[in-house]
């Protein structure tokens, strides 16, 4: 069985439970999830691109920065998947039910709402939309784990929440060199140090008031 990208996306964002089972069976399930994650990363990077503009990144470097952010986003999703899989296998003992690749298919599909990440650009409503999309994705991952692997609600919640906590711990300990490398890659791609604190950027550098 093969799945279409758009129909899979629409089914996922509408919380269709069967799509999370179908993606396990589809021959192209892994690549569909990977494409969704890359598109979501790109779209979210565009939504958050105000930092690039504010730091006066040139057009070519801007495009390159978006692509790099999309790839880094995918790596982060892979790391979170790894954490969920570890929690599943070690704490919940479901390693036989959900392999790492199976888990990635679910988590990747769970990121479907972030395809709408460019709406974060919306004036005035960008912040709430970013929060909404993040919550939507998180709940969709939890929902997907439950239906793809027949987990109970509590098992799905444990896997996603503790998976996230484990990811945060790894990111700030043994994963720190990777985080630093990503930061450096972003800076080098942009061609300028990226000041993310916009208040600092605008009110110290550009005004005399």
């Amino acid at each position, binding site marked *: 069985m093969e799945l279409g990208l758009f129909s899979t996306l629409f089914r996922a964002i509408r919380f269709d439970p069967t799509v999370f089972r179908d993606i396990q069976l589809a021959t192209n399930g892994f690549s569909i999830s990977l494409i969704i994650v890359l598109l979501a990363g790109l779209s979210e990077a565009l939504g958050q691109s105000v930092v*690039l503009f*504010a730091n*006066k990144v040139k057009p070519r470097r*801007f495009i390159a920065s978006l692509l790099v952010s999309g790839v880094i986003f995918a790596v982060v999703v892979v790391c979170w998947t790894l954490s969920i899989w570890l929690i599943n296998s070690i704490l919940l003992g479901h390693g036989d039910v959900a392999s790492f690749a199976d888990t990635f298919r679910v988590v990747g599909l769970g990121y479907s709402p972030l395809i709408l990440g*460019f*709406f974060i650009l919306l*004036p*005035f409503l960008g912040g709430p939309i970013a929060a909404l999309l993040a919550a939507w994705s998180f709940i969709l991952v939890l929902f997907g784990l439950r239906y793809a692997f027949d987990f109970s609600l509590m098992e799905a919640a444990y896997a996603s929440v503790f998976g996230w906590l484990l990811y945060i711990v790894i990111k700030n300990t043994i994963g720190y060199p990777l985080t630093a490398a990503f930061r450096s890659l972003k800076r080098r791609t942009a061609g300028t140090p990226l000041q993310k604190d916009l*208040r600092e950027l605008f009110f110290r550098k*550009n005004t005399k008031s």
Partner: protein
Amino acid sequence: MIALGTTLVILVLAFLLAASISPFETLGWWAGWYGDRDDEQSLEDAFKQGGAEILVEPSQKSHFVVFLTGVHSVSGNTYAGREINLLSHLEKHLDDCEIFEVFPYAVTNRALTGERVFGAFWRWAYNRKRRGQWILGTIINMRNIFQVGIAADKRYGPMYNQGSAEMILRGLRENGYQSGSGVPVTLIGYSGGGSIASGAAPFVKSQIQAPVVVISLGGAIFSHDGLLRIDKLYHLIGNDFLHKFTNIVFPMRWKIFAYSAWNRAMRRGLIVLYDLGPATHTGKGGYLDSKSFLDDGRSYFQQTVDALVTIIGVSSQSEID
């Protein structure tokens, strides 16, 4: 029924898409991708370059008044009869004031109908609107309302407001304003123009080092730190739906956020609410309607003119004192 639902979804998505891409003009301008701004240009440059490039005789007027038009506008010269009438009355009553207009809905200082990628579309829309096609008027209004949203957004606001300030500073120089003269400046913003005036005012003040007062005629004033750095904001409101609406959608204006910039400015007396009675935001019965009358016999339009003249007079007087 399905067709209606699909149409609605398409319309909502088109609206969201248009709103999402609306900040790109400001962002691209700020980053130096296009427009007349180079990477390192500052507000000070905008003020000085205006004077260096255009030889203008110094103005002897004792007060400068800048008018920022409402969201219906497509260029720096208002075409709305009621606004033209307002400006001519102000010129008559305030003969010691230099009065000029700025188009507040584009930081690139380009009219919608000017040299733009979609300039031809906006010229067409503008002509159709003048012939009474309301839907095109609505599209122009929406486009400009998005710009007000950009000015109110914490991410884009500082860029947009500095851009607006640069236009105002350039306008001041081109109209003979002398740096260091201390001559007070009043920014009158109608509707969305009021919001943008309040955002630009602190940046203008930082450059001219003179009193800057904002008069918002039914503006959608958002809470931002700049409100604490201007001399006074007179918020003229009648029975205005926009004021009621913004009281709800701008949470930082809610009283429970006592330490928001809006509430602090209110407590310090920097924001003065000025009641225009039963006048509404626009159209028949609006602030600029000369055919609706108060109990004292004055038209709503005359009431607005009187308020503006009084406030500008007070602003000039306090400077002299």
